[in-house]
């Protein structure tokens, strides 16, 4: 069942790429939309069959592939990967839908987008470390080409920089996986949280360090972030949507699944430093965003700041904060996709993203009033205004992290305040005042006449806005898929630490603590425990009780 999520897009890639006769441009687009639509539909079907109460991996598929290498084709879905798979399918469809209909070389373009979709889905589903790495690398080439061929004026520079950074990230991750398997003496790369128990702490630190830098580049965390603003600025709108909405999540997912999931002991020791790193990333991203004059660059730096919250919550590793990480990934995916879509429309209509030039785009007659209104909603969501998904995710992150790292959490909350600062600057500069766009030739100031915005350009943004509100008002609809898994992740980490401390006690999968029997708890520095009491803000759905 899960394989379909990988092979449907690959089938689309094959059709688009290798169909012997020419295909009309509009048919290419339609075919890509159908393929992505089927994948999205399949994701919805999977979600409807997903058992929220089940802690273990679901829809397991396990085929031996290259046994001597320890590589097997092992896929499964749990509450952590389900939302990410869903947002991948959704944003791929939106990216294709919002692509320029007259784009040149459409067959290659849509094939590459579908290839990214397959690669990302595979990475989220893989239960084998080597398989994850293969999928992780698979999305790199198409993204490089998408920036290098359809990008802006400095696309060559940006694409190469992206390639170098992400390739280094891949090498580090591969090295960590090889090291882990080799040092633990395992013959298989299959994902197993108990793999690290026999390793001395020094080796764990080394491997975790490689993973942190590897995924830190992908997320990206300061100081490994410099590729991101360049890539965003040069990438076309749909590619930016995918990059911010989906691809960065590979980094945070990896951090959670492989960093926290495989190295709980080393993670717990480094956690305070990781939280401080998150603070640096959040504040650096936010302050740099304030200084930006390019709308896309501002949104890109805001991404860096907002991904820092995920690291903070991962470091805190309470059931609530881990739930917050998943929520933050989804919320950031939706919000940043929305913002990039809107900036894309502004750029397409005005020919500029310059905050020093653009003014008054909310003008009702000649500006972009609906796009402007959606932008106001988007930045409100990003700044964490209640009623929208950004509030829920940030609240979960801060509420979950505060008992563990109060100082770092408070400093990260400053970053939320700064979000309002830079996004108000953006909205105030470009959308209020007297309508002004860069002068085109001899055009006089008074005769600004922007081309009208078509509904096809508005619909994806409207759909994302609705989703942002729905999840903001009914977070329970997402929590119910995820909560069991994220809580178990923390419990497993705790169990793993305890069992390591018990000197040689070999835990097996039967040791997994059933969530019903033992409520998730995590010891706090002051000796208290923090329960995953989501009823504080999230209404529990019936199926969870």
């Amino acid at each position: 069942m899960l394989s379909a999520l990988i092979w449907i897009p690959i089938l689309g890639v094959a059709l688009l790429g290798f169909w012997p006769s020419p295909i009309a441009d509009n048919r290419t687009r339609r075919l890509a939309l159908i393929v992505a639509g089927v994948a999205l539909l399949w994701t919805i079907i999977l979600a409807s069959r997903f058992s929220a109460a089940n802690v273990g991996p679901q829809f397991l598929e396990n085929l031996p592939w290259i046994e001597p290498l320890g590589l097997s084709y092992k896929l499964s879905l749990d509450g952590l990967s389900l939302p990410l798979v869903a947002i991948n399918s959704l944003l791929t469809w939106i990216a294709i839908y919002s692509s320029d209909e007259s784009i040149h070389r459409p067959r290659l373009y849509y094939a590459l987008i579908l290839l990214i979709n397959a690669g990302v889905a595979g990475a989220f589903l893989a239960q084998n470390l080597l398989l994850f790495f293969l999928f992780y690398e698979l999305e790199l080439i198409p993204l490089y080409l998408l920036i290098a061929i359809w990008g802006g004026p400095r696309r060559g520079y940006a694409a190469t920089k992206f390639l170098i950074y992400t390739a280094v990230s891949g090498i580090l991750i591969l090295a960590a996986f090889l090291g882990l398997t080799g040092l633990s003496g395992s013959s298989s790369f299959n994902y197993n949280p108990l793999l690290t128990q026999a390793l001395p702490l020094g080796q764990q630190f080394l491997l975790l360090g490689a993973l942190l830098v590897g995924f830190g580049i992908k997320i990206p965390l300061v100081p490994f972030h410099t590729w991101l603003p360049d890539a965003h600025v040069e990438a076309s709108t749909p590619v930016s949507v995918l990059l911010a909405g989906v691809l960065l999540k590979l980094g945070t997912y990896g951090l959670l699944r492989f960093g926290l999931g495989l190295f709980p002991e080393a993670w717990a020791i480094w956690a305070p430093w990781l939280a401080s790193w998150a603070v640096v990333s959040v504040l650096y991203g936010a302050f740099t965003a304030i200084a930006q004059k390019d709308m896309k660059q501002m949104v890109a730096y805001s991404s860096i700041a907002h991904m820092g919250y995920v690291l903070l919550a991962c470091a805190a590793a309470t059931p609530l904060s881990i739930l917050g990480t998943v929520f933050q990934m989804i919320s950031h995916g939706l919000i940043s996709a929305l913002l990039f879509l809107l900036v894309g429309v502004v750029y397409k209509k005005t020919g500029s993203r310059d905050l020093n030039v653009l003014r008054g785009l909310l003008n009702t007659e000649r500006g972009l009033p609906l796009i402007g209104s959606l932008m106001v909603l988007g930045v409100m969501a990003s700044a964490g205004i209640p009623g929208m998904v950004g509030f829920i995710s940030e609240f979960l992150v801060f509420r979950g992290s505060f008992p563990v790292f109060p100082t770092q959490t408070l400093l990260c909350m400053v970053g939320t305040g700064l979000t309002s600062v830079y996004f108000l600057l953006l909205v105030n500069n470009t959308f209020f005042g007297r309508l002004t766009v860069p002068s085109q030739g001899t055009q006089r100031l008074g005769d600004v006449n922007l081309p009208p915005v078509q509904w096809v350009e508005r619909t994806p943004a409207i759909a994302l806005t609705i989703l942002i509100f729905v999840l903001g008002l009914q977070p329970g609809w997402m929590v119910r898929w995820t909560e069991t898994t994220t809580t178990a992740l923390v419990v497993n980490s705790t169990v793993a630490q305890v069992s390591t401390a018990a000197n040689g006690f070999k835990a097996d999968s039967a040791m997994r603590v059933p969530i019903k029997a033992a409520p998730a708890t995590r010891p706090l520095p002051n000796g208290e425990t923090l329960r995953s009491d989501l009823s504080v803000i999230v209404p529990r759905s019936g199926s969870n009780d």
Partner: protein
Amino acid sequence: MIKTTLRSSTHPLAAYIEQLKTGGGLVPDRPENVLEVVGILKSYGVVLEAYYKNLLYIAEHQFLELFPFFKYFNGEVSPAKLLRHWWHDRINFEYAEYCMKAMFWHGGGGLDAYLDSPEFRTRAQSVIQAKVQGNWLISGLNQLFPEFLPEQVRQFTYYSALGQFWRVMSEIFLTLSDHYDQGKIESIPQVVAHIQAGLVAAATLPITYAVTVRGQVYDIIPESVGLTFLPDTAVPYVEAVFFRGTPFLGTVSYNAQANQISPDPSRFNYGALYADPLPIGGAGIPPTLLMQDMRHFLPEYLHQVYRQNLRGEDDLRVQICQSFQKSMFCVTTAAILGLAPYPLDTADPEQQQANQSYFEQWMDRFLSSRLEDVQA
């Protein structure tokens, strides 16, 4: 006899002076401009007709009504009309009042001078006495604040004066449209000539104002005062509404305390010839009100042109404003030509020089106007 030739003007807008001297207008003579100007003046004529009727109704029937709840109803109050009013299916009569207040505030002409004269004061007092008779509250307040009601009367004279002015203008614009439909108008100079002829014909029309209180007629501006159409309403109107205006333009906020608005009203340049059409669409901005009203009465040939433009119906009101501005430059051309001190074809160098200086004075005022924009 020494023959001198007139030096050509060195004014930055000298090109327009030459155009005026040779019978051209401030708006380029192109068929599409003729269509736009006549089409918009047609809808403006219809709107002006509604405005002037309401202004005269208010001046005559809502005189010194301090709470004129139904002043926009022209005496026909019915539940259906009230519902339509609340639904905003109506003419924005507020715009007419806005122009009236601009005229009242900027003053100028014989009407302004008359309103400060003892004769006006005596006439105003007698009508006020008649109106407040038996109303103890208002009588008492009138004793306490003796300047309040006379000022209200002054305002009502402007309601009436603007109503009378627009009655003539509405007629001029509607006949212009009829002539265009009959194929008699084909160029911008013909449009200007039509307007100029209308203004000249009405130039000496007397401006009077009388109200009936308790069955007795009170003359507030009797004919004996000698106020006439051109110098006492048309010229002050052009000055107040076309040139100076009021600094409420919508998205641009002026801070008077920071001296962003000139303390000298004669240096104001917020009028129709300077107005930025882009803020149109904002709620309550006076130009938006007018464009909204004209939208209902666009002739089909003009509407068709607007629909074919880049944003079609989306920016209809901005397009209307741009056409309207062109038409107002035509009206201004007519006024400038009509008020020229000497005939344009004079051979006398002194007269030519005087005409030139006269035109240069106008051009000084056009420096920051939208004159260059309407050339496009």
